[in-house]
């Protein structure tokens, strides 16, 4: 994967949210909080695993009103309350097959009005590709944080 196609493999979203980083970090890492916003309207989210520490697994299922279930799951890489969270992320379809591996970084930067939330998601074509990129990813995150800050 070259940097040339980064625009097609990396998603970046930024929000200014008028709440402190601690409140937002808890919404991402506490199961009872996460289920309240994780799934689209009309879906019911349930946390099956959520071990918010490096190497810990997470898995959240989403049940549609017609009974169909999809899930998202992955492994935490970096957990730095209340500033930063990095985890792998993939959709699981109704047969349980896991889609493309991606990695998500969410950073929470305190601002005078609340928090600047930056979400970065990178797509990898395989687990191996993801593992190979882990070193570069951390450096990339630091750069992003600097650009943002």
């Amino acid at each position, binding site marked *: 994967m070259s940097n040339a196609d980064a625009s*097609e*493999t990396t*998603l970046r*979203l930024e*929000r200014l*949210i*008028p*709440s*402190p980083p601690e*409140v*937002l970090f808890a*919404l*991402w890492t506490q199961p009872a*909080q996460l289920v*309240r*916003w*994780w799934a*689209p*309207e*009309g*879906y019911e989210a349930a946390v099956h695993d959520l071990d918010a520490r490096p190497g810990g697994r997470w898995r959240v299922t989403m049940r*549609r*009103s*017609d009974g169909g279930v*999809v899930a998202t799951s992955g492994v935490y890489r970096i957990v730095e309350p209340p500033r930063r969270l990095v985890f792998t992320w993939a959709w699981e379809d109704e047969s349980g097959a896991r889609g*493309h591996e*991606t990695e998500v970084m969410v950073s929470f930067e305190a601002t005078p009005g*609340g928090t600047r*939330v930056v*979400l970065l*998601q990178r*797509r990898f074509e395989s687990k191996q590709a993801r593992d190979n990129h882990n070193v570069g990813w951390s450096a990339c995150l630091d750069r992003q944080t600097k650009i943002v800050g």
Partner: protein
Amino acid sequence: MAAALAPRLDSVFGALADPTRRAIIDRLLAAGELSVGDVAAPFAISAQAISRHLQVLERAGLIERRIERQWRFVRVRADALEPVESWITRQKRHWTAALDRLEALAAAQTPKRRKS
């Protein structure tokens, strides 16, 4: 994966080839969820014709129905355009909606500051 996708692509493109059905999808994307009656409202065609269009969209996996008492609601499925969209477009929509929900919840948990 690609082989499993092909029949789905055919039905998605087939469903979206019709201007009325595209207009229905546009309407649902803008509104979120609508009752079947509200979907039909701006169209100068019969309720049966709308119903047929909805069936085609549902079979293509583009919309889903929800029944609440006597009301029938339809909305675009979260994974509706998966076969035709880029990964990034899909994820962007997913996270944008998720962050909206997160933000609303965070607001409810954040004490309001008094204005001095």
